[in-house]
């Protein structure tokens, strides 16, 4: 049994709700990407780590 199923479905619903919210609301304030935000987690994606 996939334990993550309920969590993932909740995330899908949350992301879709967020999508509608973003569409309804005003323009977001954009951040400029910074090198310090390139976390170990970003670089540890399997595809990036060992292609």
């Amino acid at each position, binding site marked *: 049994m996939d334990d993550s199923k309920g969590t993932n479905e909740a995330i899908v619903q949350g992301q879709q709700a*967020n999508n509608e919210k*973003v569409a309804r609301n005003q323009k977001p304030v954009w951040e400029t990407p910074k090198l310090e935000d390139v976390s170990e987690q970003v670089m540890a994606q399997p595809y990036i780590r060992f292609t």
Partner: protein
Amino acid sequence: MTKIDQLRAPLLVTWQLTRNCDLACVHCCTDSAPGKRLPGELDAGEAMQLAHEIIANQVPYVMLCGGEPLVVPHFLDVAEALGAAGVQLKIETNGQQFDARIAERLSRLPVRSVQISLDADSDDVYRRQRPGGSLAKAHAACEAVRAVNLPLEITFAPTRLNIDEIEAVIDRARTFGAFRFNTGKLMRIGTAARLWNKLEPSDEQYRHMLDVLRRQATAIEHSMELCYLPFSIEDGLQRSFQEPPATMLVLPDGRVKVTAALPYVCADLRRQTLAQAWEAYRGAWRDSEVLADVHHAIADASLHSRANNWKVLALANV
């Protein structure tokens, strides 16, 4: 709100400069091999234009990969344009053509990593996994990187052929002065997917590999980082599902993939600006078809084998 909805541009662009390669590795996730340049790859002028757009959008970090990036005639021009503008670089190479001249050129740039694939420690195993390759050349490339004090990163893709040599390669990487050793579960994408029944390590082999990694992680501590988590691409997708990565994967023809393990293409940098492509990428991670397929790919790794059969996504909400 997720990080990608806050950023005006990606933190990292992973740019496959070509699908062409000088080796025909059995585990390749991009279907690369000699002569397998993708039809319609960006030419030198288009690649330089994209480099300037990356700079203009203030993307802080770019990974140049392939295929083999060093077979691309404009590789150094792209790297130098990005580096001169302060964009940090990671270069992924098999090391077959990486020599002192290239090392010296790259040493003038803000290079955070030169990642070299060392998938074996004996020549016969290396040649079985990387037909056409020379382990001696890969070792020479590691030495060339360190000779000019560039940071060296080693990657090891485990298969049934080479997995028993992982400990020897970890030792070799330390000898070369690598700051990081990367590995994880073999990805079922590209050539590896086609040869899966011949390549997939057994559960017992993976257990032994993890034992080695845990033991070595304790033994070597601060001398070299061992990076192997998330171990599988499914685990990586689960993370992405919860927090989509602020990274953009650019194919050799300028199209943009949503994520490596799925076939979806969400933008085309030949026809769209990088800002438009980034907007499309953010939209893709809100798209119900993509989210459902990510969910399926987390549960079933065999679905990753479709990843290189690219499918253009019709984004209703972009």
